[in-house]
């Protein structure tokens, strides 16, 4: 089964996704905190990214969503094409547009997104990975 792994960054598990910038489709890598505590399985949201990324990638605007905790209030959402080349994953997912992503990272991968895959450290404490 294909697996993608990334070294832990700043002590946190991360994943790297690739966004396609419209209109030429130039791939742009983004490092996201892998946070199983963000959102829930039934929630519609899968990623949180800088809203500027959502707009640059030509995301389709979707209904806004209400966040609590680290981010409070109503935030815009977008359907954005997201890829993980090592897993041959490339699909539109619902992304929350943030005014400011978490310091040192490009955004957050929520439980709903991580749960698409088998996730974990696969026996290496300094890595985090996804497997299909």
């Amino acid at each position, binding site marked *: 089964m294909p697996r993608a792994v990334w070294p832990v960054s700043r002590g*946190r598990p991360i994943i790297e996704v690739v966004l396609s910038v*419209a209109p030429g489709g130039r791939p742009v890598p983004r490092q996201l*905190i892998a*946070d199983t*505590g*963000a*959102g*829930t399985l039934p*929630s*519609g*949201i899968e990623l*949180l990214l800088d809203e500027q990324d959502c707009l640059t990638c*030509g*995301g*389709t*605007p*979707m*209904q*806004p*969503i*209400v*966040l*609590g*905790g*680290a*981010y409070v209030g109503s935030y815009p959402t977008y*359907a954005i*094409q997201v890829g993980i080349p090592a897993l041959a994953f490339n*699909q*539109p*997912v*619902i992304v929350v547009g943030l005014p400011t992503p*978490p*310091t040192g*990272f490009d955004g*957050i991968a*929520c439980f709903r997104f991580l749960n698409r895959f088998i996730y974990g450290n696969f026996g290496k404490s300094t890595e985090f990975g996804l497997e299909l």
Partner: protein
Amino acid sequence: MPMSKTVQELNRELADKLAEDGRNNPHHVYAGKFVGIANGQVVVVADNLNEMVSRLRQVEPNPTRTFGVEVGRDYSVVEEIWKVS
């Protein structure tokens, strides 16, 4: 004299109405569907997000003139994001 509404406002108003109708009526004709709106009109009704985005882009290539809504989803539910310090 009222100013005319922008395409984004028209799209958003229609999406809000569909979302509210879907919340109040589980048997709504679009319940459980991903509905794509372009230029103030419903142009796509799809079973999943992938299909909605793909077909919506064919109808209206400019994403700023489009909007999407999952009818039946309760968008007022607060999604908790833990603080990253």
